[in-house]
């Protein structure tokens, strides 16, 4: 692969992986969605050149800044489900609130327990991932 100096070339890598993932999802009877297969392909492809990603981080950051916009169309299809939501809003609301609290607490407690050995109380900024 050439150095990914230009934004267009970096974007092309992502789109090519997206296309390959979509194709793979259609051809193979895998339970995984096309874009996620594309993501896994991209990880495999980029893993060895992870210190020479060129313009890819800029492209990925740009896409992720606008991410919420991209699921507006799919989310708008929820209008067809308003009758269901009207009928079942109570169990849905209870399940969403309780499961979110449970998820937060369980993740935090397990993380606290398992990371206590390797980091100090305030966390370990030196081991922090790049923002």
């Amino acid at each position: 692969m050439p150095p990914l100096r230009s934004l267009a070339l970096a974007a092309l890598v992502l789109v090519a992986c997206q296309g390959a993932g979509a194709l793979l999802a259609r051809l193979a009877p895998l339970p995984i969605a096309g874009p996620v297969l594309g993501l896994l392909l991209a990880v495999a492809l980029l893993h060895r050149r992870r210190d020479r990603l060129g313009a890819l981080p800029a492209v990925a950051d740009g896409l992720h800044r606008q991410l919420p916009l991209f699921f507006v169309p799919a989310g708008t299809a929820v209008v067809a489900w308003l009758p269901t939501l009207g009928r079942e809003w109570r169990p849905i609301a209870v399940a969403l609130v309780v499961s979110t609290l449970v998820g937060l607490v369980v993740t935090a407690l397990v993380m606290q327990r398992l990371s206590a050995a390797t980091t100090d109380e305030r966390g370990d900024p030196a081991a922090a991932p790049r923002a």
Partner: protein
Amino acid sequence: MMGDRALLASVGDTILACTATVAAYAIGRALQRAAGGTPLVNPVLVAMALLGGALHVAHIDPARYAAGSRPIQLLLGTATVAFAVPLVRQTTTIVRHRRALLTAILAGGTASALTAVGLVHALGASDVVGRTMIPKSITAPIAMGIAERVGGVPALAALFTITTGVLGASIGGALLDRLRLRAPMVRGVALGTAAHGIGAAAAFVEHPVAGAFAGLALALHGVLGAVVMPVIVRLMTR
């Protein structure tokens, strides 16, 4: 083959649908800014309400809007693939904390999915709502694909995940304070795992380390969930 007139009409639909989508989202962003940036005013929920209302009032078939907004939906796939970039950039961090990260994300993700599915079933919701609950704490673009594969509804999954994100971001900080969990890494992983992108945004406001770990956790949780959830559901319903 499409006739000239049909092609023109479809180009017109595309321009109109995409413009309306971006405009509705921009209004949502402006409202959130006006409200001081609180996660309670979510730009996507505002945009969904505006567009849904507009389709209803103008008697436009939602399928026609969906076809017109196809280009924006394609970018959703590209943005999903782009989660590969933070993952490969942070390989060292992932390897260093692999045991804690993977165990915490799997435990938290499983606990939240099981609680949600168990509660909706116990409280008498329909099967399709139960299935849609499975990926509720995963980032919306990946959750919609999972929902489709486990017999749920992608659009409902978007609503459930956004609501989860808003809840986690609004009350998560206070909850973790009460439990005296103060390490930015712990808080970040919890917010990213349980409340994906919206939780990660709240984590970034708290501390840059918390934000970075939240981003990492939401990407890992998304990949793990996309691989594991459909397989488990397929095995259980066989």
